[in-house]
């Protein structure tokens, strides 16, 4: 009995971790049922949505639920969780060992410092404005606007914990910086600057994942991700539009 409980907890923990850090819905379901199968539980069922996971190990057993409240993208953790699941299914790791390992991964600090992420967002903004047919004159203002926007985003998310508001303020910041620099004569096309610098905020991955989940038949996941993406796009659009109206 003890062992069954542990197995259920392990499956839920790994599923939660993967979903929280941006793994695909089908991969999470697949991982959970595969781990259960490797311990001879062929009738395990999982139901995964972006906001919660339901899992039951056998038809007679009660179902368990975990809620997922915050989601981010951390591919390193997805990879590590995947390695753990690989080790379990190949029989190299016991349930207890795996559980301990997952807890360690869950609380481990992120690999990249804040500063490095800000630099990455800054450069990405600049290069995206080039890719969207901007000229090199737009590179610098896009970097500045994108970097400041990203700094605003990470700080305001900590402050209110409402993603929508933080994204709105970050895009206000981007809009203000871009238009302000443009009025000083820095940058050639303000549109390219803005488009490039909002890229780090834009819910590109969510939009694509939403359509992909819908195609795979994960209808609830698809709609939930679509709604999240829509809210973010709305926040960004509204923030920039306010600046358009002001300048």
């Amino acid at each position, binding site marked *: 009995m003890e062992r069954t409980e542990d197995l259920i907890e392990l499956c839920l923990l790994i599923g939660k971790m993967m979903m929280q850090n*941006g*793994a*695909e819905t089908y*991969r999470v379901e697949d991982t959970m049922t595969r781990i259960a199968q490797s311990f001879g539980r062929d009738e395990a069922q999982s139901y995964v949505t972006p906001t919660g996971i339901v899992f039951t190990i056998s038809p007679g057993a009660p179902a368990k639920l975990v809620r997922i409240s915050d989601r981010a*993208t*951390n*591919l*390193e*953790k*997805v*990879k590590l969780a*995947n*390695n753990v699941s*690989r080790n379990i299914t190949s029989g190299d790791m016991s349930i207890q060992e795996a559980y301990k390992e997952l807890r360690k991964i869950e609380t481990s600090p*992120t*690999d*990249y410092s804040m500063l*490095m*992420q800000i630099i*990455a*967002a800054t*450069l*990405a903004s600049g*290069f*995206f404005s*080039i*890719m*969207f047919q901007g000229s090199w004159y737009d590179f610098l203002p896009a970097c500045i606007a994108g970097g400041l926007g990203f700094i605003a985003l990470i700080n305001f998310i900590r402050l209110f914990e409402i993603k929508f508001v933080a994204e709105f303020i970050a895009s206000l910041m981007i809009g203000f910086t871009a238009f302000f620099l443009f009025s000083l004569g820095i940058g050639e096309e303000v549109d390219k600057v803005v*488009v490039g610098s*909002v*890229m*780090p905020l*834009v*819910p*590109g*991955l969510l*939009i*694509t994942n*939403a*359509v*992909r989940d819908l*195609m*795979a038949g994960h209808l609830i996941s698809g709609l939930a991700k679509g709604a999240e*993406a829509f809210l973010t*796009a*709305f926040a*960004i*659009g*509204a923030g*920039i*539009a306010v600046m*358009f109206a002001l300048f």
Partner: protein
Amino acid sequence: MLIEHIIASFFASAAFGIIFQAPRNTLIKCGLVGMIGWVIYISLVWEEVDSVPATLIASFVIAMVSQMLARMYKTPMIVFSVAGIIPLVPGSLAYDAMRSFVQNDYSLAISIAAKAFMISGAIAFGLVFSEVINQILKKMRRTKAQVR
């Protein structure tokens, strides 16, 4: 200028790898995958192919390359495909559509939003299609092994 796009897409994709916290040793591969996808996309667009089929082809190639890398390095495919897909994603269109909505230009907003939806559909279709081909290849290999 193609060289500009090669450089910009490599660094933009690798930078997105950092934002998404991809494992350190995969960053260069992330950049390369993104570069390959973007170069295919932009050269097709310059040849006056419509952006929807261009996106479809590029995302298919990205997914194939990501799958190959995933198998080589025993890493989930999403680590490579995400950073590679980002340049193709209609983020700027989604933003354009939203901007038109809040500026009361509804007809323009709807048409841009439809385009963004088509492009994200094309990306998803490219990913799914490459997975289907991968599964067929796997099955073929398995039956061959059984015949032997």
